[in-house]
């Protein structure tokens, strides 16, 4: 036959476990103890309140441009929670919740948002990467990192975050192609938050799902309700286990929504309807988890009030600590630090000229 169909056995599953009303599919609920579920909730709430505070600080001119996480807490906590300490987390630029889960101090995140690279300091021995702003450029890093892990037989899995917009970049495709051909232990965690600044998901690609983009590279893909922390956790855990057992990479698409600005440098009212935002607020990942925890008597309204108070104190303390550090770090000549392992003479000369001048 001159023209026939090539069978491409590929399907994209969509997974939801915890519905918008807080009801769960008992058969699919992942095995998580109560403490872990409460930690999910606490860190999600902390990320949200921290975000709100950062936004205020930015509007007051006390910190620089940053990318809020609000709305995407479940996608980040559910996935980051699947990593062991020795696994690697490679963020893009919106992974505040994931960073808090991995143990980055909130004060460091404020310090960084204020423009101090010292805030990007990663806790000793933590296998986290610094944030990547170019869009998608961190995805090939994650593949090379995983290649090294495989070569050294280290058993470390590398999870990399990126958004819907990044799936149109060459680096995304080159990285997935690499991962497919090299069989690297990667989890490609896409947070499809529907908007790449002003470009909506439907303009970004004609593909029905982003998860299916793994097909061309021989990588399985799954779409997950990204505001359902249980579904994100279940799907990512499967992907991490596949990677760890040598079966290769997985693409996980978390369908979520950016409730706030892309970064503090843009104004969403210019490109999207408030009605759409209101619709997504009804699917808020934190409310959803809270309803579930309340239904299981793991959390009461009173508990939440106490938690809110505790978190407010924590956020305040983070700002105070960061502000104190900023005073210590006030010397503009520090801009000459950290470009080479050892500062070369020509940079020292520039530093001296600057200081003397």
């Amino acid at each position: 036959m001159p023209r026939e169909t090539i069978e491409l056995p590929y399907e994209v599953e969509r997974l939801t476990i915890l519905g918008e009303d807080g009801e769960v599919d008992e058969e699919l609920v992942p095995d998580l103890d109560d403490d872990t579920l409460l930690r999910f909730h606490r860190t999600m709430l902390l990320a949200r309140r921290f975000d709100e505070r950062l936004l205020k600080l930015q509007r007051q001119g006390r910190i620089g441009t940053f990318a809020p996480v609000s709305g995407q807490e479940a996608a980040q906590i559910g996935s980051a929670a699947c990593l062991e300490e020795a696994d690697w987390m490679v963020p893009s630029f919106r992974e505040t919740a994931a960073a808090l889960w991995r143990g980055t101090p909130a004060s460091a995140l404020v310090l960084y948002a204020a423009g101090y690279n010292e805030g990007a300091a990663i806790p000793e021995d933590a296998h986290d990467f610094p944030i990547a702003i170019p869009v998608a450029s961190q995805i090939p890093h994650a593949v090379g990192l995983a290649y090294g892990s495989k070569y050294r037989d280290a058993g470390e899995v590398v999870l990399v975050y990126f958004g819907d917009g990044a799936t149109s970049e060459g680096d995304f495709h080159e990285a997935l192609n690499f991962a497919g051909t090299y069989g690297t232990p990667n989890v490609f965690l896409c947070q499809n938050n529907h908007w790449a600044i002003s470009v909506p998901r439907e303009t970004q690609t004609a593909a029905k799902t982003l998860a299916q983009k793994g097909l061309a590279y021989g990588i399985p893909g799954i779409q997950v309700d990204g505001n359902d922390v249980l579904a994100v956790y279940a799907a990512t855990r499967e992907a991490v286990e596949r990677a760890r057992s040598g079966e290769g990479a997985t693409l996980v698409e978390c369908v979520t929504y950016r409730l706030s600005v892309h970064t503090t440098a843009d104004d969403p009212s210019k490109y999207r309807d408030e009605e759409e935002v209101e619709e997504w607020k009804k699917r808020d990942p934190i409310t959803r988890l809270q309803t579930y925890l309340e239904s299981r008597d793991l959390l009461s309204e009173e508990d939440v009030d106490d938690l809110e108070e505790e978190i407010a104190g924590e956020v305040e303390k983070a700002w105070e600590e960061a502000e104190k550090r900023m005073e210590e770090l006030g010397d503009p000549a520090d801009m000459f630090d950290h470009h080479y392992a050892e500062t070369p003479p020509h940079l020292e000369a520039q530093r001296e000229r600057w200081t003397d001048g």
Partner: protein
Amino acid sequence: MTEAVETRTTTYREAMREAIREALQRDERVFLMGEDVGRYGGTFGVSRGLLEEFGEERIRDTPLSEGGFVGAGIGAAIGGMRPIVEVMTVNFSLLALDQIMNNAATLLHMSGGQINVPLVIRMTTGGGRQLAAQHSHSLEGWYAHIPGIRVLAPATLEDARGMLGPALEDPDPVIIFEHGSLYNMESELDGDAPPVDLTSAGVRREGDDITLVTYGGTLPTTLAAADELAGSGIAAEVIDLRSLRPLDTETILASVRKTRRAVVIDEGWRTGSISAEISARIVEGAFFELDAPIARVCSAEVPMPYAKHMEDAALPQVADVVAAAREVVGSRP
């Protein structure tokens, strides 16, 4: 006769291969990846035989994706490996420029001094082989513009053999430019040629009448011009920059203070080039010691022509260097 320190005639290509082989033998974290480096042994034959010797995990053929494999090299380097990434030609490296500049060169800064990227990127550069306008440019100067990386241009067998080891030991990203016209260059080399320093320029020929500053593929051209000038009684000193970032300004200035005249030979395009930078540094540091204006011999500012007669015309030739030097010497005050 001792067997260990045997001197033999070899090529620039083999010297580079020997350097890679030694790096692979010495350090298990080292691996080579790039297009055609494995089964084919590299499009310029540098890695021939290494796949058979070291296996697929360490001599890694990659998909055709410069951004992808330079990026993967960055990730592997941060994760504790010591990758050598081969980019087939400098023209292709433009596809990886975001990875090199926005990532490799900035991650140390972005991480507050915490994350070094000990990555070595090797690539072929330059014209003269009729590979036309998309494979033949000399863009070393673009890379030399970027803070946060080290840029090397080995132009001798000793440097081809000796630069890779220290480059791999450097905690920062290093780019090594191998000019395509140099691979077949032959000379004698010690079997155990030592590592070389990565910061100083080299004086390849001494002379008192004029300083000729060059690097990479135009070093043989410049040395040939110096020979010819010697025939007419002009003693030229030839400086090989070796490192394009950082630049060893002192060696250049010391020579110019002695000869009081300079010609800069650079295969890159003249405007905004390394030759412009060298000229500026001479003017900044030795203006009052100059007896004549500085001259430059660069490539014509056109995409590299395909036809041989036009490509020859576009590139710096021995006759161009000789003519420029004569003019500068002739303009004695």
